[in-house]
Protein backbone atom coordinates (compact mmCIF):
# COMPACT_ATOMS: atom_id res chain seq x y z
CA UNK A 1 0.00 0.00 0.00
CA UNK A 2 1.55 3.27 -1.09
CA UNK A 3 -0.10 6.45 0.09
CA UNK A 4 0.76 10.12 0.36
CA UNK A 5 2.00 10.96 3.82
CA UNK A 6 0.77 14.45 4.73
CA UNK A 7 -0.03 16.15 8.05
CA UNK A 8 -3.75 16.60 8.50
CA UNK A 9 -3.28 20.22 9.59
CA UNK A 10 -2.12 20.99 6.04
CA UNK A 11 -5.64 20.21 4.84
CA UNK A 12 -6.98 22.68 7.38
CA UNK A 13 -4.52 25.38 6.30
CA UNK A 14 -5.42 24.84 2.66
CA UNK A 15 -9.15 25.01 3.37
CA UNK A 16 -8.69 28.28 5.25
CA UNK A 17 -6.96 29.74 2.20
CA UNK A 18 -9.92 28.68 0.10
CA UNK A 19 -12.35 30.18 2.62
CA UNK A 20 -10.35 33.39 2.60
CA UNK A 21 -11.08 33.59 -1.10
CA UNK A 22 -14.76 32.62 -1.12
CA UNK A 23 -16.15 33.80 2.22
CA UNK A 24 -15.24 37.20 3.58
CA UNK A 25 -16.99 36.46 6.86
CA UNK A 26 -14.34 33.94 7.84
CA UNK A 27 -11.90 35.20 10.48
CA UNK A 28 -8.99 33.05 11.61
CA UNK A 29 -7.66 33.31 15.14
CA UNK A 30 -4.65 31.78 16.81
CA UNK A 31 -2.91 31.88 20.17
CA UNK A 32 0.72 32.26 19.16
CA UNK A 33 0.96 28.89 17.39
CA UNK A 34 0.13 29.92 13.84
CA UNK A 35 3.12 28.19 12.24
CA UNK A 36 2.33 24.98 14.00
CA UNK A 37 -1.41 25.00 13.27
CA UNK A 38 -0.95 26.22 9.67
CA UNK A 39 -3.07 29.33 10.20
CA UNK A 40 0.02 31.28 9.12
CA UNK A 41 -0.87 30.50 5.50
CA UNK A 42 -4.13 32.41 5.92
CA UNK A 43 -2.42 35.13 7.99
CA UNK A 44 0.04 35.88 5.20
CA UNK A 45 -2.62 36.19 2.55
CA UNK A 46 -5.41 37.80 4.60
CA UNK A 47 -3.69 39.67 7.42
CA UNK A 48 -6.69 41.93 8.00
CA UNK A 49 -8.84 38.87 8.79
CA UNK A 50 -6.33 37.14 11.01
CA UNK A 51 -6.27 37.80 14.77
CA UNK A 52 -3.40 36.58 16.91
CA UNK A 53 -4.43 37.00 20.55
CA UNK A 54 -1.10 35.94 22.00
CA UNK A 55 -1.00 33.09 24.47
CA UNK A 56 -4.51 33.67 25.82
CA UNK A 57 -6.95 30.93 24.87
CA UNK A 58 -9.80 32.04 27.11
CA UNK A 59 -9.82 35.53 25.66
CA UNK A 60 -9.51 34.08 22.15
CA UNK A 61 -12.68 32.01 22.49
CA UNK A 62 -14.73 34.93 23.77
CA UNK A 63 -13.37 37.48 21.30
CA UNK A 64 -14.47 34.94 18.70
CA UNK A 65 -17.88 34.89 20.37
CA UNK A 66 -18.08 38.66 19.95
CA UNK A 67 -17.08 38.41 16.30
CA UNK A 68 -19.68 35.72 15.68
CA UNK A 69 -22.38 38.02 17.09
CA UNK A 70 -21.56 40.30 14.17
CA UNK A 71 -22.16 37.47 11.67
CA UNK A 72 -18.52 36.60 11.29
CA UNK A 73 -17.32 33.01 11.24
CA UNK A 74 -14.29 32.76 13.51
CA UNK A 75 -12.03 29.70 13.37
CA UNK A 76 -10.34 29.64 16.76
CA UNK A 77 -7.18 27.61 16.47
CA UNK A 78 -4.60 26.24 18.86
CA UNK A 79 -3.54 22.92 20.37
CA UNK A 80 -6.55 20.84 21.35
CA UNK A 81 -5.30 20.26 24.85
CA UNK A 82 -5.16 24.00 25.54
CA UNK A 83 -8.36 25.20 23.95
CA UNK A 84 -10.59 22.40 25.25
CA UNK A 85 -9.07 22.41 28.69
CA UNK A 86 -8.15 25.95 29.55
CA UNK A 87 -11.05 27.55 27.68
CA UNK A 88 -13.67 24.93 28.51
CA UNK A 89 -15.78 27.33 30.56
CA UNK A 90 -15.69 29.90 27.75
CA UNK A 91 -16.72 27.27 25.22
CA UNK A 92 -19.46 26.02 27.52
CA UNK A 93 -20.90 29.17 29.01
CA UNK A 94 -20.47 31.67 26.21
CA UNK A 95 -20.21 29.76 22.94
CA UNK A 96 -22.43 26.70 23.43
CA UNK A 97 -24.90 28.15 25.91
CA UNK A 98 -25.53 31.10 23.59
CA UNK A 99 -25.33 28.76 20.56
CA UNK A 100 -22.81 30.95 18.74
CA UNK A 101 -21.26 30.30 15.37
CA UNK A 102 -17.72 29.75 16.62
CA UNK A 103 -15.48 27.02 15.22
CA UNK A 104 -12.98 25.60 17.68
CA UNK A 105 -10.05 23.87 16.04
CA UNK A 106 -7.76 21.77 18.20
CA UNK A 107 -4.62 20.62 16.49
CA UNK A 108 -2.25 18.08 18.04
CA UNK A 109 -4.84 15.52 19.03
CA UNK A 110 -3.72 12.17 20.44
CA UNK A 111 -0.43 10.70 21.61
CA UNK A 112 1.02 10.74 18.10
CA UNK A 113 1.99 14.35 18.89
CA UNK A 114 5.09 12.53 20.14
CA UNK A 115 8.13 14.12 21.79
CA UNK A 116 6.34 17.11 23.38
CA UNK A 117 4.88 14.64 25.85
CA UNK A 118 1.74 14.27 27.89
CA UNK A 119 1.19 17.99 28.55
CA UNK A 120 0.72 18.63 24.83
CA UNK A 121 -1.19 15.53 23.76
CA UNK A 122 -4.96 16.04 23.70
CA UNK A 123 -6.46 12.71 24.74
CA UNK A 124 -9.68 13.96 26.36
CA UNK A 125 -10.72 16.68 23.90
CA UNK A 126 -13.36 14.68 22.05
CA UNK A 127 -15.03 13.78 25.32
CA UNK A 128 -14.98 17.35 26.60
CA UNK A 129 -16.48 18.76 23.43
CA UNK A 130 -18.95 15.98 22.76
CA UNK A 131 -20.75 16.38 26.07
CA UNK A 132 -21.66 20.00 25.36
CA UNK A 133 -25.19 20.75 24.10
CA UNK A 134 -25.34 22.50 20.69
CA UNK A 135 -21.81 21.33 19.81
CA UNK A 136 -20.85 19.48 16.62
CA UNK A 137 -17.67 17.37 16.82
CA UNK A 138 -15.69 16.35 13.75
CA UNK A 139 -12.50 14.31 13.62
CA UNK A 140 -11.21 13.94 10.06
CA UNK A 141 -8.95 11.02 9.16
CA UNK A 142 -6.53 12.69 6.78
CA UNK A 143 -5.64 15.99 5.13
CA UNK A 144 -8.09 15.49 2.27
CA UNK A 145 -10.96 15.00 4.68
CA UNK A 146 -9.76 17.82 6.94
CA UNK A 147 -9.98 20.14 3.96
CA UNK A 148 -13.55 19.10 3.22
CA UNK A 149 -14.59 19.16 6.86
CA UNK A 150 -13.28 22.69 7.31
CA UNK A 151 -15.27 23.94 4.31
CA UNK A 152 -18.40 22.19 5.58
CA UNK A 153 -18.05 23.62 9.07
CA UNK A 154 -17.88 27.12 7.63
CA UNK A 155 -21.35 26.50 6.18
CA UNK A 156 -22.76 24.99 9.37
CA UNK A 157 -24.43 27.45 11.73
CA UNK A 158 -23.49 26.89 15.37
CA UNK A 159 -20.56 25.82 17.51
CA UNK A 160 -18.26 23.08 16.29
CA UNK A 161 -15.04 21.37 17.31
CA UNK A 162 -12.61 20.12 14.70
CA UNK A 163 -9.82 17.84 15.89
CA UNK A 164 -6.56 17.75 13.97
CA UNK A 165 -3.26 15.96 14.48
CA UNK A 166 0.36 16.91 14.22
CA UNK A 167 2.08 13.98 12.54
CA UNK A 168 2.12 13.38 8.81
CA UNK A 169 -0.16 10.39 8.22
CA UNK A 170 -1.25 8.31 5.27
CA UNK A 171 -3.92 9.73 3.01
CA UNK A 172 -6.73 7.21 3.12
CA UNK A 173 -9.52 9.09 1.37
CA UNK A 174 -9.53 10.66 -2.05
CA UNK A 175 -10.66 14.03 -3.30
CA UNK A 176 -13.56 12.44 -5.14
CA UNK A 177 -15.00 10.88 -1.96
CA UNK A 178 -18.15 12.48 -0.62
CA UNK A 179 -18.13 14.05 2.80
CA UNK A 180 -21.32 14.72 4.75
CA UNK A 181 -21.39 15.84 8.36
CA UNK A 182 -23.04 13.23 10.54
CA UNK A 183 -22.83 10.50 7.92
CA UNK A 184 -20.12 7.90 8.42
CA UNK A 185 -18.08 6.55 5.50
CA UNK A 186 -17.58 2.88 4.74
CA UNK A 187 -13.97 2.62 3.62
CA UNK A 188 -14.13 -1.06 2.81
CA UNK A 189 -16.61 -3.87 3.10
CA UNK A 190 -15.75 -7.27 4.48
CA UNK A 191 -17.77 -10.12 5.88
CA UNK A 192 -15.90 -11.03 9.04
CA UNK A 193 -16.13 -8.10 11.42
CA UNK A 194 -16.70 -4.34 11.57
CA UNK A 195 -14.15 -1.81 12.78
CA UNK A 196 -15.26 1.72 13.63
CA UNK A 197 -12.55 4.33 13.99
CA UNK A 198 -12.12 8.09 14.12
CA UNK A 199 -9.22 10.31 13.13
CA UNK A 200 -5.74 9.66 11.77
CA UNK A 201 -5.53 6.32 13.54
CA UNK A 202 -7.45 5.16 10.46
CA UNK A 203 -4.12 4.68 8.69
CA UNK A 204 -3.11 2.13 11.34
CA UNK A 205 -6.53 0.48 11.16
CA UNK A 206 -6.15 0.00 7.41
CA UNK A 207 -2.70 -1.50 7.88
CA UNK A 208 -4.10 -3.81 10.55
CA UNK A 209 -6.84 -4.83 8.18
CA UNK A 210 -4.27 -5.76 5.50
CA UNK A 211 -2.58 -7.98 8.07
CA UNK A 212 -5.92 -9.55 8.98
CA UNK A 213 -6.61 -10.26 5.33
CA UNK A 214 -3.39 -12.26 5.20
CA UNK A 215 -4.91 -14.43 7.87
CA UNK A 216 -8.14 -14.82 5.95
CA UNK A 217 -10.19 -12.22 7.83
CA UNK A 218 -11.94 -9.47 5.88
CA UNK A 219 -13.12 -6.55 8.01
CA UNK A 220 -15.58 -3.82 7.18
CA UNK A 221 -13.99 -0.47 8.06
CA UNK A 222 -16.12 2.52 8.97
CA UNK A 223 -14.79 6.04 9.38
CA UNK A 224 -16.76 7.88 12.05
CA UNK A 225 -15.49 11.35 11.17
CA UNK A 226 -18.45 12.98 12.92
CA UNK A 227 -18.65 12.13 16.60
CA UNK A 228 -21.60 14.42 17.13
CA UNK A 229 -24.22 14.16 15.77
CA UNK A 230 -23.43 10.45 15.79
CA UNK A 231 -24.47 8.28 12.86
CA UNK A 232 -26.50 5.86 14.98
CA UNK A 233 -28.05 4.06 12.03
CA UNK A 234 -24.78 2.73 10.72
CA UNK A 235 -23.74 1.61 14.20
CA UNK A 236 -26.97 -0.35 14.68
CA UNK A 237 -26.88 -1.73 11.16
CA UNK A 238 -23.42 -3.23 11.62
CA UNK A 239 -24.06 -4.27 15.23
CA UNK A 240 -26.99 -6.34 13.99
CA UNK A 241 -24.98 -7.72 11.12
CA UNK A 242 -21.88 -8.86 13.06
CA UNK A 243 -23.18 -9.14 16.66
CA UNK A 244 -19.92 -7.61 17.84
CA UNK A 245 -17.96 -4.49 16.92
CA UNK A 246 -14.47 -3.11 17.21
CA UNK A 247 -13.85 0.58 17.98
CA UNK A 248 -10.42 2.17 17.57
CA UNK A 249 -9.53 5.70 18.58
CA UNK A 250 -6.57 7.77 19.70
CA UNK A 251 -8.38 9.10 22.74
CA UNK A 252 -9.00 8.08 26.32
CA UNK A 253 -11.28 5.10 26.69
CA UNK A 254 -13.61 7.43 28.58
CA UNK A 255 -15.60 10.01 26.66
CA UNK A 256 -14.63 9.42 23.05
CA UNK A 257 -16.06 7.49 20.13
CA UNK A 258 -16.13 4.21 22.05
CA UNK A 259 -18.18 5.77 24.82
CA UNK A 260 -20.56 7.29 22.29
CA UNK A 261 -21.05 3.97 20.49
CA UNK A 262 -21.39 2.01 23.75
CA UNK A 263 -24.10 4.35 24.88
CA UNK A 264 -26.11 3.75 21.70
CA UNK A 265 -25.64 -0.01 21.84
CA UNK A 266 -26.41 -0.37 25.55
CA UNK A 267 -29.78 1.19 24.94
CA UNK A 268 -30.72 -0.17 21.53
CA UNK A 269 -28.82 -3.36 20.84
CA UNK A 270 -26.52 -4.59 23.61
CA UNK A 271 -23.63 -6.54 22.16
CA UNK A 272 -19.96 -6.86 23.05
CA UNK A 273 -17.52 -4.35 21.66
CA UNK A 274 -13.75 -4.39 21.66
CA UNK A 275 -12.68 -0.85 22.45
CA UNK A 276 -9.09 -0.14 21.48
CA UNK A 277 -8.18 3.23 23.04
CA UNK A 278 -5.87 4.92 25.52
CA UNK A 279 -6.27 3.46 29.00
CA UNK A 280 -6.74 5.65 32.06
CA UNK A 281 -3.36 7.39 31.84
CA UNK A 282 -1.63 10.40 30.29
CA UNK A 283 0.60 10.32 27.25
CA UNK A 284 4.37 10.68 27.35
CA UNK A 285 7.33 11.64 25.18
CA UNK A 286 8.61 9.40 22.43
CA UNK A 287 8.51 8.99 18.68
CA UNK A 288 4.93 8.72 17.42
CA UNK A 289 5.29 5.17 16.11
CA UNK A 290 6.90 4.05 19.37
CA UNK A 291 4.09 5.62 21.39
CA UNK A 292 1.33 4.15 19.23
CA UNK A 293 2.80 0.70 19.73
CA UNK A 294 3.31 1.21 23.46
CA UNK A 295 -0.30 2.35 23.85
CA UNK A 296 -1.65 -0.59 21.85
CA UNK A 297 -2.58 1.53 18.85
CA UNK A 298 -0.04 0.42 16.23
CA UNK A 299 -1.34 -1.64 13.30
CA UNK A 300 0.36 -4.70 14.76
CA UNK A 301 -1.24 -4.29 18.18
CA UNK A 302 -4.63 -3.41 16.72
CA UNK A 303 -4.55 -6.54 14.59
CA UNK A 304 -3.63 -8.73 17.55
CA UNK A 305 -6.42 -7.34 19.74
CA UNK A 306 -8.97 -7.81 16.96
CA UNK A 307 -7.86 -11.39 16.38
CA UNK A 308 -8.14 -12.19 20.10
CA UNK A 309 -11.59 -10.62 20.14
CA UNK A 310 -13.17 -12.30 17.15
CA UNK A 311 -11.71 -15.74 17.51
Amino acid at each position, binding site marked *: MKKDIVPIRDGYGKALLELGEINDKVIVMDADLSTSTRTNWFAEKYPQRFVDVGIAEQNMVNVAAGLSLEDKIPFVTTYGVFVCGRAFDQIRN*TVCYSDLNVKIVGSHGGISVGPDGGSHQAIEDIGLMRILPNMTVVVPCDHVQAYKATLKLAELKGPAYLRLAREPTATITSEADKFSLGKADILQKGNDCAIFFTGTIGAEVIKASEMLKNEGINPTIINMHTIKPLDKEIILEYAKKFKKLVVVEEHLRTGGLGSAISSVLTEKYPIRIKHIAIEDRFGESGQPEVLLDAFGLSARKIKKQILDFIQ
Partner: protein
Amino acid sequence: MTERKNKKIEKLKNIALELRRDILKMIAKAGSGHPGGSLSATDIGTALFFSEMKYDSNDPDWKERDRFILSKGHAAPLLYALLAKAGYFSGSELNKLRGYKSILQGHPASYLVPGVEVSTGSLGQGLSVAAGLALSAKQDKKNFRVFSLLGDGELNEGQIWEAIMFSGHNKLDNLCAIVDRNHLQIDGDTEKVMALEPLEEKWQSFNWNTISINGHDFEEILMAFEKFNQNSDKPFVIIAKTVKGKGVSYMENKAGWHGKAPNREQLEIALKELEN
Protein backbone atom coordinates in the same frame (compact mmCIF):
# COMPACT_ATOMS: atom_id res chain seq x y z
CA MET B 1 -25.82 73.38 35.21
CA THR B 2 -28.39 74.24 32.57
CA GLU B 3 -32.09 73.85 33.17
CA ARG B 4 -32.24 71.18 30.50
CA LYS B 5 -29.51 69.15 32.09
CA ASN B 6 -31.15 69.51 35.49
CA LYS B 7 -34.36 68.16 34.08
CA LYS B 8 -32.58 65.26 32.44
CA ILE B 9 -30.88 64.32 35.68
CA GLU B 10 -34.16 64.58 37.57
CA LYS B 11 -35.69 62.22 35.03
CA LEU B 12 -32.81 59.75 35.35
CA LYS B 13 -33.04 59.83 39.14
CA ASN B 14 -36.71 58.94 38.97
CA ILE B 15 -36.08 56.12 36.55
CA ALA B 16 -33.34 54.78 38.81
CA LEU B 17 -35.71 54.78 41.78
CA GLU B 18 -38.32 52.94 39.76
CA LEU B 19 -35.75 50.37 38.59
CA ARG B 20 -34.50 49.82 42.12
CA ARG B 21 -38.05 49.09 43.20
CA ASP B 22 -38.48 46.70 40.26
CA ILE B 23 -35.24 44.93 41.16
CA LEU B 24 -36.25 44.39 44.76
CA LYS B 25 -39.79 43.33 43.91
CA MET B 26 -38.69 40.77 41.37
CA ILE B 27 -36.01 39.30 43.64
CA ALA B 28 -38.44 39.15 46.58
CA LYS B 29 -41.01 37.43 44.38
CA ALA B 30 -38.44 34.95 43.06
CA GLY B 31 -37.17 34.27 46.56
CA SER B 32 -33.57 34.46 45.37
CA GLY B 33 -31.28 36.63 43.26
CA HIS B 34 -28.61 39.29 43.58
CA PRO B 35 -29.78 42.65 44.94
CA GLY B 36 -26.45 44.10 46.16
CA GLY B 37 -24.63 44.33 42.83
CA SER B 38 -27.81 45.19 40.94
CA LEU B 39 -28.46 48.21 43.13
CA SER B 40 -24.86 49.42 43.05
CA ALA B 41 -24.93 49.57 39.25
CA THR B 42 -28.47 50.89 38.81
CA ASP B 43 -27.48 54.53 38.25
CA ILE B 44 -24.83 53.55 35.70
CA GLY B 45 -27.30 51.29 33.90
CA THR B 46 -29.94 54.00 33.94
CA ALA B 47 -27.58 56.56 32.42
CA LEU B 48 -26.54 54.07 29.75
CA PHE B 49 -30.01 53.00 28.71
CA PHE B 50 -31.87 56.28 29.13
CA SER B 51 -29.29 58.82 28.08
CA GLU B 52 -26.19 57.42 26.41
CA MET B 53 -26.88 54.37 24.27
CA LYS B 54 -28.53 54.19 20.86
CA TYR B 55 -30.91 51.27 20.41
CA ASP B 56 -34.37 50.41 19.20
CA SER B 57 -36.28 48.03 21.45
CA ASN B 58 -38.68 47.30 18.58
CA ASP B 59 -35.75 46.11 16.51
CA PRO B 60 -33.29 44.43 18.90
CA ASP B 61 -31.04 43.43 15.98
CA TRP B 62 -30.77 46.96 14.53
CA LYS B 63 -27.26 46.96 13.10
CA GLU B 64 -26.32 50.45 14.24
CA ARG B 65 -27.28 49.96 17.88
CA ASP B 66 -24.73 50.35 20.62
CA ARG B 67 -23.93 47.01 22.22
CA PHE B 68 -24.17 46.38 25.94
CA ILE B 69 -22.56 43.36 27.58
CA LEU B 70 -23.31 42.68 31.22
CA SER B 71 -20.12 40.90 32.16
CA LYS B 72 -21.24 40.68 35.81
CA GLY B 73 -24.16 38.47 34.81
CA HIS B 74 -25.50 38.09 38.34
CA ALA B 75 -26.78 41.68 38.05
CA ALA B 76 -29.44 40.15 35.80
CA PRO B 77 -32.29 41.79 37.76
CA LEU B 78 -30.85 45.20 36.85
CA LEU B 79 -30.52 44.25 33.20
CA TYR B 80 -34.06 42.86 33.09
CA ALA B 81 -35.49 45.98 34.77
CA LEU B 82 -33.63 48.15 32.23
CA LEU B 83 -34.78 46.11 29.24
CA ALA B 84 -38.39 46.04 30.40
CA LYS B 85 -38.37 49.79 31.01
CA ALA B 86 -36.79 50.28 27.57
CA GLY B 87 -39.62 48.28 26.03
CA TYR B 88 -37.87 45.07 24.95
CA PHE B 89 -40.53 43.01 26.71
CA SER B 90 -43.49 43.52 29.02
CA GLY B 91 -42.86 44.51 32.61
CA SER B 92 -45.06 41.62 33.73
CA GLU B 93 -42.23 39.24 32.77
CA LEU B 94 -40.30 40.55 35.75
CA ASN B 95 -42.66 38.66 38.05
CA LYS B 96 -41.44 35.41 36.53
CA LEU B 97 -37.77 35.95 37.32
CA ARG B 98 -35.96 32.64 37.91
CA GLY B 99 -39.10 30.61 37.34
CA TYR B 100 -39.50 27.51 35.21
CA LYS B 101 -40.01 28.41 31.51
CA SER B 102 -39.39 32.09 32.21
CA ILE B 103 -37.32 34.02 29.68
CA LEU B 104 -35.69 35.64 32.70
CA GLN B 105 -33.23 33.01 33.87
CA GLY B 106 -31.19 33.45 37.02
CA HIS B 107 -28.41 34.76 34.81
CA PRO B 108 -29.05 36.33 31.37
CA ALA B 109 -29.57 33.86 28.52
CA SER B 110 -29.32 35.57 25.14
CA TYR B 111 -31.32 32.90 23.33
CA LEU B 112 -34.34 33.79 25.44
CA VAL B 113 -34.30 37.53 26.06
CA PRO B 114 -34.52 40.20 23.37
CA GLY B 115 -31.89 42.84 24.03
CA VAL B 116 -29.42 40.48 25.71
CA GLU B 117 -26.47 40.24 23.30
CA VAL B 118 -24.79 37.21 24.85
CA SER B 119 -25.34 34.89 27.79
CA THR B 120 -23.27 35.70 30.85
CA GLY B 121 -23.05 34.42 34.38
CA SER B 122 -19.66 32.78 34.53
CA LEU B 123 -17.56 35.77 35.57
CA GLY B 124 -14.67 37.19 33.60
CA GLN B 125 -15.98 36.48 30.12
CA GLY B 126 -18.01 39.50 29.04
CA LEU B 127 -15.19 41.93 28.42
CA SER B 128 -13.63 39.58 25.86
CA VAL B 129 -16.95 39.33 24.03
CA ALA B 130 -17.24 43.12 24.12
CA ALA B 131 -13.72 43.36 22.71
CA GLY B 132 -14.73 40.98 19.89
CA LEU B 133 -17.69 43.21 19.07
CA ALA B 134 -15.52 46.32 19.14
CA LEU B 135 -12.93 44.65 16.92
CA SER B 136 -15.63 43.64 14.47
CA ALA B 137 -16.88 47.25 14.33
CA LYS B 138 -13.34 48.39 13.56
CA GLN B 139 -12.91 45.76 10.84
CA ASP B 140 -16.18 46.73 9.20
CA LYS B 141 -15.79 50.47 9.83
CA LYS B 142 -19.06 50.61 11.76
CA ASN B 143 -19.83 53.39 14.17
CA PHE B 144 -21.55 51.55 16.97
CA ARG B 145 -19.97 51.60 20.41
CA VAL B 146 -19.62 48.78 22.90
CA PHE B 147 -20.24 49.13 26.63
CA SER B 148 -19.47 46.45 29.16
CA LEU B 149 -20.31 46.52 32.84
CA LEU B 150 -17.92 44.63 35.09
CA GLY B 151 -17.98 43.83 38.77
CA ASP B 152 -14.91 44.71 40.80
CA GLY B 153 -14.72 41.25 42.31
CA GLU B 154 -14.90 39.96 38.76
CA LEU B 155 -11.54 41.58 38.08
CA ASN B 156 -9.97 38.71 40.05
CA GLU B 157 -10.48 36.59 36.94
CA GLY B 158 -7.35 36.23 34.81
CA GLN B 159 -9.29 36.36 31.57
CA ILE B 160 -10.32 39.95 32.32
CA TRP B 161 -6.67 40.95 32.14
CA GLU B 162 -6.23 39.05 28.89
CA ALA B 163 -9.13 41.09 27.51
CA ILE B 164 -7.72 44.34 28.90
CA MET B 165 -4.36 43.58 27.27
CA PHE B 166 -6.03 42.61 23.98
CA SER B 167 -8.19 45.74 23.84
CA GLY B 168 -5.28 48.05 24.61
CA HIS B 169 -3.12 46.30 22.03
CA ASN B 170 -5.79 46.65 19.36
CA LYS B 171 -6.58 50.27 20.29
CA LEU B 172 -10.29 49.58 20.65
CA ASP B 173 -11.33 53.16 21.33
CA ASN B 174 -14.95 52.24 20.57
CA LEU B 175 -15.01 50.11 23.73
CA CYS B 176 -16.06 51.48 27.11
CA ALA B 177 -15.70 49.28 30.19
CA ILE B 178 -17.39 50.35 33.40
CA VAL B 179 -16.23 48.89 36.70
CA ASP B 180 -18.88 48.79 39.38
CA ARG B 181 -16.39 49.54 42.16
CA ASN B 182 -18.50 48.72 45.20
CA HIS B 183 -15.55 47.26 47.11
CA LEU B 184 -17.40 44.11 48.14
CA GLN B 185 -17.35 40.57 46.87
CA ILE B 186 -19.00 37.52 48.40
CA ASP B 187 -16.28 36.83 50.92
CA GLY B 188 -15.94 40.48 51.95
CA ASP B 189 -13.86 43.59 51.20
CA THR B 190 -12.21 43.31 47.79
CA GLU B 191 -8.97 44.61 49.26
CA LYS B 192 -8.92 41.84 51.82
CA VAL B 193 -10.03 39.00 49.56
CA MET B 194 -7.76 39.87 46.63
CA ALA B 195 -6.53 43.45 46.51
CA LEU B 196 -7.23 45.35 43.30
CA GLU B 197 -5.58 48.67 44.10
CA PRO B 198 -3.99 50.61 42.57
CA LEU B 199 -6.75 49.80 40.10
CA GLU B 200 -6.83 52.82 37.83
CA GLU B 201 -3.07 52.64 37.32
CA LYS B 202 -3.36 48.98 36.38
CA TRP B 203 -5.72 49.81 33.52
CA GLN B 204 -3.53 52.73 32.46
CA SER B 205 -0.48 50.52 32.32
CA PHE B 206 -2.42 48.20 29.96
CA ASN B 207 -2.88 51.18 27.60
CA TRP B 208 -6.39 52.27 28.51
CA ASN B 209 -7.68 55.77 29.14
CA THR B 210 -9.33 55.95 32.53
CA ILE B 211 -11.59 58.07 34.66
CA SER B 212 -12.73 57.60 38.25
CA ILE B 213 -16.14 58.90 39.21
CA ASN B 214 -18.88 58.65 41.78
CA GLY B 215 -21.11 56.00 40.23
CA HIS B 216 -24.23 57.39 41.88
CA ASP B 217 -23.83 60.97 40.67
CA PHE B 218 -25.54 61.35 37.30
CA GLU B 219 -23.66 64.50 36.46
CA GLU B 220 -20.38 62.66 36.85
CA ILE B 221 -21.64 59.58 35.00
CA LEU B 222 -22.78 61.65 32.02
CA MET B 223 -19.52 63.60 32.05
CA ALA B 224 -17.59 60.30 31.96
CA PHE B 225 -19.54 59.21 28.86
CA GLU B 226 -18.75 62.57 27.25
CA LYS B 227 -15.08 61.91 27.88
CA PHE B 228 -15.45 58.48 26.32
CA ASN B 229 -16.98 60.04 23.24
CA GLN B 230 -13.98 62.34 22.86
CA ASN B 231 -11.63 59.44 23.49
CA SER B 232 -9.38 58.06 20.76
CA ASP B 233 -6.60 55.54 20.19
CA LYS B 234 -7.23 53.64 23.41
CA PRO B 235 -10.12 51.81 25.02
CA PHE B 236 -11.80 53.65 27.86
CA VAL B 237 -12.65 52.54 31.37
CA ILE B 238 -14.87 54.27 33.88
CA ILE B 239 -14.11 53.23 37.42
CA ALA B 240 -17.38 54.02 39.11
CA LYS B 241 -17.19 54.16 42.88
CA THR B 242 -20.44 52.76 44.14
CA VAL B 243 -22.16 51.42 47.23
CA LYS B 244 -23.28 47.83 47.19
CA GLY B 245 -27.01 47.67 47.91
CA LYS B 246 -27.33 51.43 47.18
CA GLY B 247 -30.66 52.96 48.15
CA VAL B 248 -31.72 50.43 50.77
CA SER B 249 -30.32 51.35 54.18
CA TYR B 250 -30.03 47.86 55.58
CA MET B 251 -28.39 46.50 52.43
CA GLU B 252 -25.82 49.22 51.87
CA ASN B 253 -22.22 48.08 52.17
CA LYS B 254 -23.24 44.63 53.37
CA ALA B 255 -21.61 41.70 51.58
CA GLY B 256 -24.38 39.49 52.96
CA TRP B 257 -26.83 41.09 50.51
CA HIS B 258 -24.84 39.98 47.49
CA GLY B 259 -27.13 37.09 46.70
CA LYS B 260 -30.06 37.10 49.10
CA ALA B 261 -33.72 37.99 48.62
CA PRO B 262 -35.50 40.33 51.04
CA ASN B 263 -38.51 38.88 52.86
CA ARG B 264 -41.91 40.61 52.80
CA GLU B 265 -41.25 43.05 55.65
CA GLN B 266 -37.79 43.85 54.39
CA LEU B 267 -39.22 44.54 50.94
CA GLU B 268 -41.78 46.93 52.37
CA ILE B 269 -39.12 48.88 54.23
CA ALA B 270 -36.98 49.02 51.09
CA LEU B 271 -39.82 50.18 48.86
CA LYS B 272 -40.67 52.93 51.32
CA GLU B 273 -37.08 54.13 51.25
CA LEU B 274 -37.17 54.19 47.47
CA GLU B 275 -40.26 56.32 47.00
CA ASN B 276 -39.92 59.27 44.65
